[in-house]
């Protein structure tokens, strides 16, 4: 499958602080990929590199086969960009902003924009600066849908939105991306929204990628194992066992191992356990299990 985004060996530092080293990933055409990570793991850094507003210390990032920093401006017609906080020109109103953007995009779909705006019930002359964050998110989404890009890059699309607007945004976006075979690369702090939306996920840890795989595959394989152990027992983390913790006499550990393998592993490590149970997880729990609470 053709890759729309290809990042190869990205390394970036802010001063002496390493964000990541030799980060590589790709996004194939028609997939919705979510970038998940705790604060400070480099999500916004990656979005900034992808949108051409940050030059990595080394490595390269290709979109539609062209290096983003040297990209032919015309190719940007095919990239829809949503900035964190649904930022748009605050000094414009709904009509002015549509008129402005329409001149730059040959495939501009005015009706897609106004279809969404009609649901907002705001006056056409209302300035964007006087809109709520939810309304602004709809304006930003409407503009991206009207632009009709091949690739959508969305930075923390759920920031500041109430549950209703988040759901509206996710449903609209998913329907649009699936029906038009669009590629989407996004980040969000609200992982429940991601579960409804994304096909693939990249989970970032400090300095590297923890996992990259389809969400369905992740949720089918990852388990939270609980067991009863003597109070005060400690299990050290190792490959395949993520963030083990013991509270009172309850052991909790996350793993991709099947139940039989996990049982064998605990026995091999001479863990004094009883009542081993395996629970399936949703994406948020899987994220916390793999990256830890702290």
């Amino acid at each position: 499958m053709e890759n729309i985004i290809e990042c190869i060996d990205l390394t970036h530092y802010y001063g002496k602080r390493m964000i990541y080293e030799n980060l590589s990933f790709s996004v194939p055409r028609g997939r919705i990929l979510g970038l998940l990570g705790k604060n400070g793991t480099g999500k916004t850094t990656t979005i900034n590199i992808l949108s051409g507003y940050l030059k990595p210390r080394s490595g390269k990032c290709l979109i539609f086969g062209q290096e983003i920093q040297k990209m032919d401006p015309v190719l940007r017609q095919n990239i829809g960009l949503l900035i964190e906080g649904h930022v748009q020109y605050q000094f414009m109103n709904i009509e002015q902003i549509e008129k402005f953007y329409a001149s730059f995009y040959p495939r501009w779909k005015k009706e897609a924009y106004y279809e969404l705006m009609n649901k907002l019930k705001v006056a056409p002359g209302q300035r964007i600066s006087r809109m709520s964050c939810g309304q602004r998110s709809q304006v930003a989404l409407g503009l991206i849908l009207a632009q009709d890009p091949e690739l959508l890059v969305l930075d923390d699309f759920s920031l500041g939105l109430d549950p209703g607007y988040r759901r509206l945004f996710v449903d609209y976006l998913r329907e649009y991306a699936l029906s038009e075979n669009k590629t989407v690369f996004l980040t969000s702090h609200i992982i429940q929204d991601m579960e409804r939306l994304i096909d693939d996920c990249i989970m970032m840890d400090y300095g590297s990628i923890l996992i990259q795989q389809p969400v369905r595959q992740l949720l089918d394989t990852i388990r939270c194992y609980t067991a009863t152990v003597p109070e005060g027992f400690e299990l050290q983390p190792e490959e395949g066992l993520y963030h083990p913790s013991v509270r009172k006499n309850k052991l909790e550990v996350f793993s991709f191992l099947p139940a039989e393998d996990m049982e064998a592993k605990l026995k091999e490590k001479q863990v004094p356990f009883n009542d081993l149970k395996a629970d399936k997880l949703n994406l948020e729990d899987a994220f916390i299990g793999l990256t830890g609470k702290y």
Partner: protein
Amino acid sequence: MWKAIFYKEWIKTRWYFVLALLLTLGFAGYCLLRMNRVIVFQGPAHLWEVMLSRDVIFIDLLQYIPLLVGILMAIVQFVPEMHHKCLKLTLHLPYPALRMVMTMLLSGLALLVFCFVSNFLLMGIYLQQVLAPEMTKHILMTALPWYLAGLTGYLLVSWVCLEPAWKRRVINLAISVFVLKIFYMSSTPEAYNSFIPWLFMYTVMATSLSWLSVLRFKIGKQD
């Protein structure tokens, strides 16, 4: 596409432009009214005598007005671009970034030039009715560096506003103050006559500075 860029800049600056036009015309008109009062009460001969013997030009009040107008134009035009990093939206448009920045500057300069030319026309039309052509030229040539300072001030403050890092902004501001001081080194009328081509060159050169800020913005420079 350039029309759309002008449209966006016009939306940002239109109310300020009206205000700037009224303000500059108001100040120029007030200076002319003062001259008119001298003519009405003491006769045109007295006005000529004062101008020739004491080197008075009657429009000193205008000295810093174009500079103030130019600086505020840059702030009105470029602060909204930097607010929440809106400039990212502008530079993401499928239009060459250099051409985009230059078109934005051109739109601000066009409004300022309109404003300043209207001032010159107002002064020129009135003065040629009451003064000898040499004296009209004397006044207008004295005012010319102030108006060039207005255009340069606009370009320099645009450079400062578009700069992404605060530390560098302070440095840029200090350089801007130093450059603008050159336009106000002498208060003697027509002191700059032979220097005006140089001042004009400074103005032209200041146009390219904003691009440096945008290049720094594009590679993600920050404090």
